[in-house]
């Protein structure tokens, strides 16, 4: 990426960033609650395939964020933070996460929002999240030498897999995602 020289906006533990983090959190939590995704019944409804609120929220966020962030990146206003691809760890971790998510009924973000709206069972979920994180840290040395090495491909993007330019890929993908939202609204209003 050519424009990654953009100046970093202060350390994450500087006072302005602490305040910004809290402010962004306020907005995020407010939106999650208004979107209904802090509710156990709405989340389980998604997993039982009777309520598609979660997918509607996520796809809408992905479409708007995708267009916005790649546009800002093209203008040199932001840096990208593409995630590491490690096939074995991604798949194993993703499936484990899903099982935990089905049991708890809240994800890490919506769990915090659930607590905010008074779902006290989220307290046990948050305690579990902290415990599980620490157990992971205990095993992080071993995992980084084993499973995280399997299928380690670095920070690859979907267009890289197809040998396409990012812009071309977006011109195809964004309308497809919008179309899928319309189909979803038709099938699952």
């Amino acid at each position, binding site marked *: 990426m050519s424009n990654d020289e953009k100046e970093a906006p202060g350390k994450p533990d500087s006072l302005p960033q602490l305040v910004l983090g809290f402010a962004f959190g306020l907005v995020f939590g407010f939106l999650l609650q208004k979107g209904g995704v802090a509710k156990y019944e709405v989340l389980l409804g998604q997993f039982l395939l009777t309520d598609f609120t979660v997918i509607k929220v996520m796809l809408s966020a992905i479409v708007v964020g995708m267009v916005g962030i790649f546009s800002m990146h093209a203008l040199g206003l932001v840096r990208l933070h593409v995630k590491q691809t490690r096939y074995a760890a991604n798949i194993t971790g993703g499936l484990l996460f899903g099982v*935990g998510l089905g049991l708890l009924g809240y994800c890490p973000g919506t769990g915090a929002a659930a607590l905010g709206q008074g779902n006290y069972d989220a307290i046990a979920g948050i305690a579990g999240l*902290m415990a599980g994180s620490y157990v992971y840290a205990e095993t992080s040395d071993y995992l980084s030498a084993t499973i995280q090495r399997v299928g380690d491909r670095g920070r690859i993007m979907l267009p890289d897999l197809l040998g396409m330019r990012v812009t071309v890929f977006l011109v195809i993908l964004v309308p497809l995602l919008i179309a899928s939202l319309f189909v979803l609204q038709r099938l699952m209003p």
Partner: protein
Amino acid sequence: MGYEGAAWSPYLVGALIGVLSMATFYFSDKPLGISTSYARLAGMVGNLFSKSHTESLKFYQDSKPKIEWGVMLLFGVIIGAFIAAYTGDEMTGAWVPLLWQDRFGTDVTMRLGVAFLGGAIMAYGARLAGGCTSGHGISGALQLSVSSWIVLACFFAGSVLTAMLLYRL
């Protein structure tokens, strides 16, 4: 089903979360992501028991257990949801969700036990996969990370399977 749904349109809420992502990239050079903050908080608790042991763990050498942007984001989410629920008259104040009660009864201990177990498994999975529903599912997916789309599919596969086993057997 008789359970309450969302106050606002999911498309509007999603679009605004997309705009919020743009703001965090621009003002903080950070994608939205929550799960690492629980790990940092856990590390801070670990420091109370044995600082030297916690600091010896590889994960905490990369992600320091301290209050930073992401932890403040997490605190903000709790308060923001409280403001939304309080002003929207949607506070629940319940230890056991209604849908769970209809299936498994009102036993608080059982619900909290399963919630704790679920949270622990989920956190372990998030760390192994490299993020959660916000970090991978929204921020990573919108940046076209290959890993995020794979992880997102696995999130759904695991949660659908688990929910079906819990509620449809």
